[in-house]
């Protein structure tokens, strides 16, 4: 006998259950990123958040986005964040946050915004929207055809944007040359 389409006793489909599970992981770990005291653990929780988000992409059928998410956000960006923390922090230093004076207002504001968003998004009928230019996420070929078709300009200009950011980043991080040391 095949598996039933919905989970017994709960009555939601397996995909929905997976989505809820991953969404719970995203929310929980994201909360821990904000609330945690140990900055490295916060970074690791961030990785968990991004990973669960990639899982949600897979559940929704966008596996290319999920792969890129893991490759870029976990494999590169999060690792670089951890790298920077490890280079600059000392584990023997105090784990207390030094400038944390607005935790309560921030918590209230984010809770308010969260409730507002949840109510507003929950009250909206999304089913009535017709999506015109959303590609079929089935395979690499369709994604590539969309990326290099209607979205070619955005795709290419994104690389220009990154180039500009890299140039600026290198400039800011570069050690000054000898001739530049004549600071007044």
């Amino acid at each position, binding site marked *: 006998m095949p598996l039933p389409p919905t989970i017994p006793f709960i009555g939601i489909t397996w995909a929905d259950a997976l989505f809820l599970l991953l969404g719970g992981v995203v929310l929980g770990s994201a909360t821990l990123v904000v609330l945690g005291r140990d900055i490295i653990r916060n970074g690791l929780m961030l990785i968990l958040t991004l990973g669960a988000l990639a899982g949600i992409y897979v559940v929704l059928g966008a596996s290319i986005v999920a792969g890129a998410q893991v490759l870029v956000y976990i494999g590169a960006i999060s690792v670089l964040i951890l790298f920077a923390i490890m280079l600059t922090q000392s584990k023997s230093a105090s784990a207390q946050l030094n400038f944390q004076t607005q935790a309560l207002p921030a918590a209230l504001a984010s809770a308010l915004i969260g409730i*507002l*968003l949840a*109510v*507003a*998004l929950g*009250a*909206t*009928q*999304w089913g*009535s*929207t*017709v*999506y*015109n*230019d959303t590609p079929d996420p089935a395979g690499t070929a369709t994604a590539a055809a969309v990326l290099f*078709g*209607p*979205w*070619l*300009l*955005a795709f290419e*200009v*994104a690389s*220009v*944007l990154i*180039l*500009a*950011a890299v*140039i*600026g*980043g290198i*400039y*800011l991080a570069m050690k*000054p*040359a000898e*001739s*530049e*040391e*004549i*600071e*007044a």
Partner: protein
Amino acid sequence: MSGEMMTIAPLLTVIFGAVAVLIADMVVPARRYTPIAVALAALGAAAVFITAQGGGVTIALAGAYVTGPFVSYLGLLGITVTTITLLMTPDHVGDRGYPTAEFASILLFALAGAILVAASTDLVTLFIGLELLVIPGYLLAGYAKRDPLSTEGAVKYFLLGSFSSAILLFGIVLLWGSSGTASLSGIAAALASGSATPALAVALALITTGASFKIAAVPFHYWTPDAYQGSPTPITGYLSVGPKVGAFALAIKLFLVALAPLALLWVPVVAVLAAATMTLGNLVALTQLNVKRMLAYSSIAHTGYLMVGLVAAGLGEVAGISGILFYGAAYAFMNLGAFAVLTAIQGRPGSTTQLSDLAGLGRRHPLLAILAAVFLLSLTGIPPTAGFFAKAYVILAAVQAGGAAALLAIVAVLNAAVAACYYLRVIIYLFMREPAEPPVEVATPPLLRIGLILAAIGTIALGLAPTLLIEAVARAIAP
């Protein structure tokens, strides 16, 4: 050259120019003027391409990039702003031991972003163009990287700018989700036929917030004073003009094209923000003793005037858009000119821009002082200058729109009177105070002089013969 290549040629020229600047610096390293010359050549080529397009509507890349009079106008304005900035800056940063190549390259990238914002037809390209416009701004704000003030300003600008980008992006995503398309005109069509949902209201709120950050409207202006004060003076001049005009191009695209069907929802909010921005910017500017910081608050106030035009346009008054466009050009000339004067009096590295530093400039350097007076009078809005007509058009548009917009026009006029106080106070210092001892060292290298003269010509010419630009503006907004 094929038609499509011709259409995107200005954008490509600017981007390749930015790369060519760095290559030139690699071939002949550490020259102060070589990168500037290459960048100016690229700007000239881009201007030629835009002129050659003749303002006709052309479409490239499957409709992702559409040029027309609007794009040509903003492109030429951006090229002008970039040119004057390129002329003002090299000696200032060069004397302080910073290279000019990276500056010129980053500036050209920002210009490419501005052109892209103007020419984009969908939310994705629009957002990427906006980021290409503002991310170079963060880097330029921190360009004096050994100066803690510059770094502090850059960090504040970067953090708040990133947050605002995220907020804007969230709004854009909800807008896309509500309308089902990323095309600006498609969104307008979908919104016109559909009903307003709660998600759409949230999207509107987020987009308004994000855009307000970008144009530095009260209460989202906190980054402005620090970022403007910390940056090297000529770069502050650019930051107060380039990203602002670009962000208003974004606002026109988002609010007046995509969100036009929802005008009744956002116009009141923008009107309140405009009034608050004008008033707070001017009142705080009154108390500033540092001229750079004062001009920072004054630029916030000018944001408010520009938003008056947005409100008028939102109420269906086409003159509002032309007011914004004209104001953008006038503001570019007069504000860049004012900062060019400040650059000149900071001849020696490490010199400040306190109000007292300007005392008695009229006696020692009469020509510079007169130019400063012209720019300040124009910023105030005194008749024979560009600033007068700019304010006049915007306020007139608001009056024509009628209703609450007329009330906003009254607020704008009152604010102009308040603004006169602090602008005129600087002029008093310039001409009626004893020079400071020891006197400030003024340096006007040739490039800076050219920049000053260009800004002055623009300010005066637009004041004497505003019709020159009015026609171009009228073409730009013609449907």
